[in-house]
């Protein structure tokens, strides 16, 4: 995808009530609707921490959902608007579990180091299982105490009882995050 169309894509879904001056030329795309993915994650019982269970039509979707599930625990993501985009490009050593770990860590680190950027929608653009590489984009905005709710902070991703079930039709993924 060319740089230009990428930019267009990233800013194409600004909500109608946004101020045009603040968001410049992208506001002209305000009639384009942004479809947020359905929720395919839940939080399961775990004594100290949170176990995220996600699923999807493909393993990519399950990964995306796990990351969105993580952010949804930190704030009510329905209040997050599509104002900014961040891209990650990661590689892991080992197996699919290492890749999932790295993928979630990377998003948590983007949040922690990019002024509390919270994506509402995460899209995997490239998923290379041989090279264990993922390129993904997150669409969202910077956390703002005046507009967003405070949930609980996710401290870290763990390997504890991590499970990836590719054999099931729902591609279930289980991951425990430390909070």
């Amino acid at each position, binding site marked *: 995808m060319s740089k230009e169309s990428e930019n267009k894509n990233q800013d194409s879904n600004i909500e109608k009530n946004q101020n045009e001056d603040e968001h410049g030329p992208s506001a002209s795309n305000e009639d384009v609707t942004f479809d947020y993915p359905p929720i395919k994650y839940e939080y399961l019982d775990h004594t100290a921490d949170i176990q995220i269970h996600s699923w999807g039509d493909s393993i990519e979707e399950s990964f995306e959902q796990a990351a969105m599930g993580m952010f949804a625990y930190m704030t009510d993501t329905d209040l997050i608007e599509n104002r900014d985009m961040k891209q990650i490009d990661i590689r892991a050593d080992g197996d699919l579990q290492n890749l999932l770990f790295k993928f979630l860590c990377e998003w948590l680190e983007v949040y922690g180091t990019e002024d509390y950027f919270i994506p509402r929608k995460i899209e995997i653009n490239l998923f290379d299982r041989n090279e264990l590489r993922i390129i993904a984009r997150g669409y969202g905005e910077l956390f703002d105490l005046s507009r967003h709710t405070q949930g*609980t*902070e996710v401290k870290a991703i763990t390997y504890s009882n991590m499970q990836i079930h590719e054999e099931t039709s729902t591609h279930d993924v289980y991951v425990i995050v430390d909070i």
Partner: protein
Amino acid sequence: MPRTYDEELKFIERINNHSWRIKKGFVPNMNVEGVFYVNSHLEKLMFEELENATKFGGIGGFLPGMKQIANVAALPGIVGRSVGLPDVHSGYGFAIGNMAAFDYNDPKAIVSPGGVGFDINCGVRLLRTNLTEKDVQPMKEQLAQSMFDHIPVGVGSKGVIPMNAKDLEEALEMGMDWSIREGYSWAEDKEHCEEYGRMLQADPTKVSQRAKKRGLPQLGTLGAGNHYAEIQIVDEIYDRFAAGKMGIDFKGQVCVMIHCGSRGLGHQVATDALVAMEKAMKRDQIQTNDRQLACALIHSEEGQDYLKGMCAAANYAWVNRSSMTFLARQAFARCFNTTPDDLDMHLIYDVSHNIAKIEEHMMSDGKQKTLLVHRKGATRAFPPHHPLIPVDYQLTGQPVLIGGTMGTCSYVLTGTEQGMKETFGSTCHGAGRALSRAKSRRNLNWYEVLDDLREKGIAIRVASPKLVQEEAPDSYKNVTDVVETCHAAGISKLCVKLRPVAVIKG
């Protein structure tokens, strides 16, 4: 073929009224035995957890605390016993409330970031005041609000202490010495802090840029989850002499407790180490029973890098707690229109309950050994006359601060000689969870939890009210059961009981 619950029980044996032994064979490759301390209430919870886990075959689920204590006993270089303290509950890798010591001079011994936890040097500090309950009762809403206004809490909050990248480097190296130099701490504060608020092995160059970037905006923030700042009242004094040494003289005296850690910086140091150690484990052929027990040989490059980075993160945590102490002192001074000095807001003590330290211990054969002691959700509790505790507490033993949960009591204990022998000078750290967070959310209602606190006369300010049920007292083991078990088992001694009048939470 997984064992049934009854088969599992054959490996668990009662030692006395307060402790149980986990025999070798409970999990593969155990080098030493496990032990856990419980009373009859806590015992039920532990066995229930094990029973549930045996029913649960495969998908989802998690390892019960007993299995985790045993998995730690299977790590290379462990000495003594893998100890589960009364507040023990299932964590990742190590259980929370798990203490394990490794022989520092054994070339095969390991260090594990999982044995420290992600929140490096998470800990508790207690300040005293010369105020009485009568002084604060009419002011408590105002005080709670003032504390809430001063201390940034919850997800997405940013610190108010001015800090640039260079300051951060210095803070990582100097710990509380930095806070004193910058005027946030009183010089005498560091006397009453483990390690005098500074780990000398700290090396900021072993902390990744990413960790520093996460830590920079968060210095002086409380965070979320179980972290809190509380205004507490002395409710009971069990040991008048020891309490007197701490400056706690009468029932109704007001104290301030702060519970927090090293924020995103510490979490990132731990995550970075886990990734680095996974490779080192393959190289050095270290076998563990659980992937989350990633570890490295103490004397490998990865092991030493982690220890130096962990020490830097520990220093950050002390600077963090010191910054919040500064803010709490300001909040009090403003409310009472006086100075923190005149309010006698001295630091009683500061403990770390997520840390690994190099310590000297006497082994059961009478020989002295240098050990790397991992305390995850466990508090150091050194006995009287130990050289590493401050002069003021030489006769009483080290003060041990046990934070309760939102709305419940907290305790001050002191270290004992028996604890030194049995648990390498370690005791519990808090209540320990009983209900899972998801279950808490289903069973408890957040506004009922808040109403209940108000009825008890506790002022509360919380950043995420909808999540308070996760931290509600009912989600935790009873902290009184936990400390009474420690006292009855002799691994530490009851000194003071505190009850909250105001809570500030993320």
